[in-house]
């Protein structure tokens, strides 16, 4: 396989006629609006284009070819049928501003998706408009804030966030004008309830939790936490990042949550990772219902209609120009329709079974677990601190060396509180053979760490690019190709 591939503009010297999108100037454009320079287009033939993009796809690491223990956080396997049906010509050609009567089929899909997500979360109503998980969070906390303000309770500005939380949680609270108060986690992975009680009070707006938590364990005191927060007048926000573990098994509403965001792209079948597209649908209980972002699909007199600001005057407003990421919503709709209630439970069954199997195998192979006394949810944490102390080989070196063995690295160095950690999420679709091979690779790498550490510290050896300079990439990012030939004037 070719290990490098030039940028398409670098295919020079070809005698091909450059592609020009418009051969004739449209008659209705004024003279001064016409460009004077020739349009810069790659000078390539069709075959060169095909080879270029095929080679790039071969250089890419993909879940279509290999194991990807980053899990649903970045990419679980997404059934092909979801994408195929979302790409039906009627969906693709639909204009977002088309009149309601011309989009009834599409709107029915969204309406039914809203209903299915209500069932999955137990919430009273769902809005599909947030276009990313972070936007769903923003909507959730904005609704909490709007609720307190509407009651003349404007001093409630504190949002409580566990120290193990995703970085987006405190960022969201800050963006909503709230003050972040951190609460500690106990060594067993559960929240420090005593510490929480000392923080709670008349300034508490709410608490943001993921359950199972970012530590890969189910928060066992969730009912006590919910009671304590509600007792002081605060609300509970559920970050749906780890919904894969509880799908069809337990409803966020039964844990006491008032508002939920669901990462449709993570749990419900959209290829993502690397920046989108996403969907952070939000669901709320009765108290927050008036504040849901618009538009929302409603059914009136047998027809589907958009409910907007005129129907919901207390809404926090719009989070996207139209109604969210249509493609992601449609893929989620197909996925949920195909799974049904029973299929959804099987997702959670196998996601947690695979994680617990892998965790047990690694523990039996003497890998150190961050929470050895706890059952895994859909993911779990291994700490390599002993190996690092003995050999100097770090979690990052293991991660890079896994690439040489045809496996993607799990998440490294998150959560931050666990030193030299790997956060491993195999997902529901992997086979036992793949999981066994992953264990064998980690065992082999640990032996190498003691016998020939350099093999790991210089890894990867067989990938298209070797170890990248993270520091330089962060400090001096080089994002633009500046070698483009200067366009020639007409």
């Amino acid at each position, binding site marked *: 396989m070719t290990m490098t591939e030039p940028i398409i503009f670098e295919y020079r010297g070809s005698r091909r006629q450059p592609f020009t999108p418009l051969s004739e100037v449209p008659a209705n454009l004024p003279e001064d609006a016409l460009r004077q320079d020739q349009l810069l287009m790659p000078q390539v033939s069709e075959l060169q284009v095909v080879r270029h993009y095929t080679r790039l796809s071969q250089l890419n690491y993909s879940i279509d070819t290999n194991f990807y223990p980053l899990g649903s956080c970045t990419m679980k396997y997404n059934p092909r049928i979801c994408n195929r049906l979302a790409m039906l010509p009627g969906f693709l050609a639909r204009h977002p501003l088309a009149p309601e009567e011309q989009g009834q089929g599409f709107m029915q899909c969204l309406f039914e998706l809203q209903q299915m997500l209500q069932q999955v979360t137990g919430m009273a109503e769902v809005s599909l408009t947030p276009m990313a998980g972070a936007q769903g969070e923003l909507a959730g906390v904005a609704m909490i804030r709007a609720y307190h303000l509407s009651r003349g309770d404007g001093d409630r500005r504190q949002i409580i966030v566990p120290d193990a939380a995703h*970085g987006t949680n405190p960022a969201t609270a800050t963006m909503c004008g709230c003050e972040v108060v951190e609460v500690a986690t106990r060594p067993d992975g559960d929240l420090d309830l005593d510490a929480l009680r000392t923080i709670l009070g008349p300034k508490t707006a709410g608490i943001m939790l993921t359950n199972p938590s970012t530590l890969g364990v189910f928060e066992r005191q969730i009912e006590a936490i919910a009671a304590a927060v509600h007792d002081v007048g605060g609300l509970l926000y559920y970050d749906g990042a780890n919904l894969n573990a509880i799908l069809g098994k337990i409803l966020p509403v039964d844990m006491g949550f008032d508002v939920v965001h669901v990462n449709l792209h993570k749990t419900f079948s959209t290829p993502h990772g690397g920046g989108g597209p996403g969907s952070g649908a939000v669901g709320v209980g009765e108290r927050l219902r008036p504040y849901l972002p618009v538009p929302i699909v409603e059914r009136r007199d047998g027809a589907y209609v958009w409910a907007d600001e005129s129907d919901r005057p207390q809404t926090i407003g719009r989070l996207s120009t139209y109604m969210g990421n249509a493609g992601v919503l449609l893929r989620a709709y197909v996925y949920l329709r195909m799974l049904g209630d029973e299929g959804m439970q099987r997702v959670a069954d196998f996601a947690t079974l695979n994680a617990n199997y892998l965790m047990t195998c690694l523990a039996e192979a003497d890998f150190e677990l961050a929470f050895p006394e706890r059952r895994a949810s859909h993911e779990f944490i291994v700490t390599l*601190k002993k190996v690092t*102390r003995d050999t100097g080989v770090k979690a990052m070196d293991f991660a890079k060396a896994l690439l040489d063995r045809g496996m993607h690295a799990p998440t*490294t*160095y*998150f959560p*931050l509180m666990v*030193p030299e950690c790997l956060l491993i999420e195999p997902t529901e679709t992997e086979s036992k053979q793949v999981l066994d091979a992953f264990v064998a690779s980690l065992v082999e790498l640990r032996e190498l760490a003691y016998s020939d550490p350099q093999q790991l510290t210089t890894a990867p050896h067989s990938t298209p690019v070797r170890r990248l300079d*993270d*520091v330089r990439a*962060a*400090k001096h990012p080089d994002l633009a190709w500046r070698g483009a030939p200067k366009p020639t004037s007409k």
Partner: protein
Amino acid sequence: MIEAPDNLKYTEAHEWLRLEDDGTVTLGITDHAQQALGELVFVDVPDAGDSFEVGDACAVVESVKAASDVYCPLAGTVTEANPALGDQPELINSGPYVEGWILRLEPQNPEYLEDMLDAEAYQQLVAGAED
């Protein structure tokens, strides 16, 4: 074994403090903290004149692994922040106790320094966390 000079005071959040002759206190993060963070790529320091209460986030250190707040262990007003860190955050990696200092402040209660960890207690804290 990490480095932790005897003439400094330490916090459980892995900061060090040094009382200067002029009564100000210099603050930075420890050798252990810089090792755990890895190579730093960005440091956000406060302006001279900024005031902090105990526990306020007074600086941000960002590495290839993580971004982390530095919490002010003493209430006071910043007299000076390390101007070199803007261009060379890696100074914290190369010399966390020397060229990698983060800020100096005029403490409200310099006597609280006495209650902080000494080098031996800090070394024990770090060793305990690693077991």
